[in-house]
């Protein structure tokens, strides 16, 4: 849940990038970090294994600017995608304001995508959230690879509720900011509702 500070006039929101192992969650954050001007970002923290797999989370704080006199701060987190880190994933989801599901477009990762999405729903439910009520976007990443499935196929199996979806190549940045912007917008729109 967001933290609204009326005293310092700041809004803090937590966005979580979720998805199967190696789908490109960390790469999304690295790209955002590299392309954001220094004043708008803090340090990126990656708690990772020696082989660069996310162990607990990546964290990237962004200040996007002011809206009606309130500074907007977004805290971006990634979860560890490997199946056996489920306990950590649950912890990262606590207090989430918006979710981006990053799918791996490669044919051989089809089952991993489905499994991760089910895991996301389940873990949210456990904490009293409903994915269908949260600000939520989907990114089909690794569009550059030859074994990528068609977006139509991916959309059919991974985006039944037709939330905003984007094609991505996180390594070169394709779709990365479009995805983030949409998610941030949805979160702010939710805040406007005053839930």
């Amino acid at each position, binding site marked *: *849940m*967001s*933290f*609204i*500070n*009326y*005293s*310092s006039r700041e*809004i*803090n929101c*937590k966005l979580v990038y979720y998805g199967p192992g190696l789908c490109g969650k960390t790469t999304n954050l690295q790209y955002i970090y590299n392309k954001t*001007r220094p004043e708008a970002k*803090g*340090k990126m*923290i990656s*708690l990772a294994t020696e082989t660069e797999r996310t162990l*607990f*989370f990546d*964290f990237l*704080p962004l200040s*996007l*600017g002011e*809206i*009606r006199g*309130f500074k*907007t*701060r977004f*805290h971006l987190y990634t979860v560890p995608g490997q199946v056996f880190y489920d*306990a*950590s994933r*649950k*912890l*990262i989801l*606590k*207090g989430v304001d918006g979710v981006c599901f990053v799918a791996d477009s490669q044919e051989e990762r089809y089952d991993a995508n489905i499994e991760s999405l089910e895991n996301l729903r389940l873990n949210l439910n456990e*904490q*009293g*959230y409903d994915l269908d009520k949260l600000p939520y976007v989907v990114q089909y990443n690794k569009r550059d690879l030859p074994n990528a499935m068609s977006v139509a196929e991916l959309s059919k199996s991974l985006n039944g509720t037709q939330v905003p979806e984007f094609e991505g190549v996180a390594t070169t940045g394709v779709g990365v900011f479009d995805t983030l*912007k949409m998610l*941030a*917008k949805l979160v*702010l*729109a939710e*805040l*406007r*509702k*005053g*839930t």
Partner: protein
Amino acid sequence: MNPQLVMFEEELKQIQKIADRLQQDSRARSILLIDKNGALVAAAGAAHELDTTSLSSLVAGNVAATGGIAKLLQEDEFTGQFHEGKGMSINLSLVGRRIILVVLFDKNTTPGLVRLRVKRAQDELVPIFEELAKKALSPQSSPLPDITDQDIDNLFND
């Protein structure tokens, strides 16, 4: 699911006063109050020397992980943590269900004194955050009732 956290001028002043006094009474370097989601709520002492944003997220992650361990052991929650370094030590404790109280200190004081003063500050802080939790539930606390799609779009026009 935790309700939204809000902070107002009045409560922040009270919290700041308690944090400032805790910092002095315990002879600590700095005091941080962090919400469990990793956002900084208040700071006292030499906090400007610190990367408080990174610290807040790591402390919150640490407390979340420890809370997860507690749950696995059928403990409700561990009440505190203490990490001792050569120069700096850190004491983490909970204020209610939502806030983490962090004391950073050096050889200028002792863990015993810190714990003693923390206890008192906790007792004073709990009712303030309870009051804030109540206020968060009242409907007028949406800060952006009249923001437009244009306002949101403007954020991204860089």
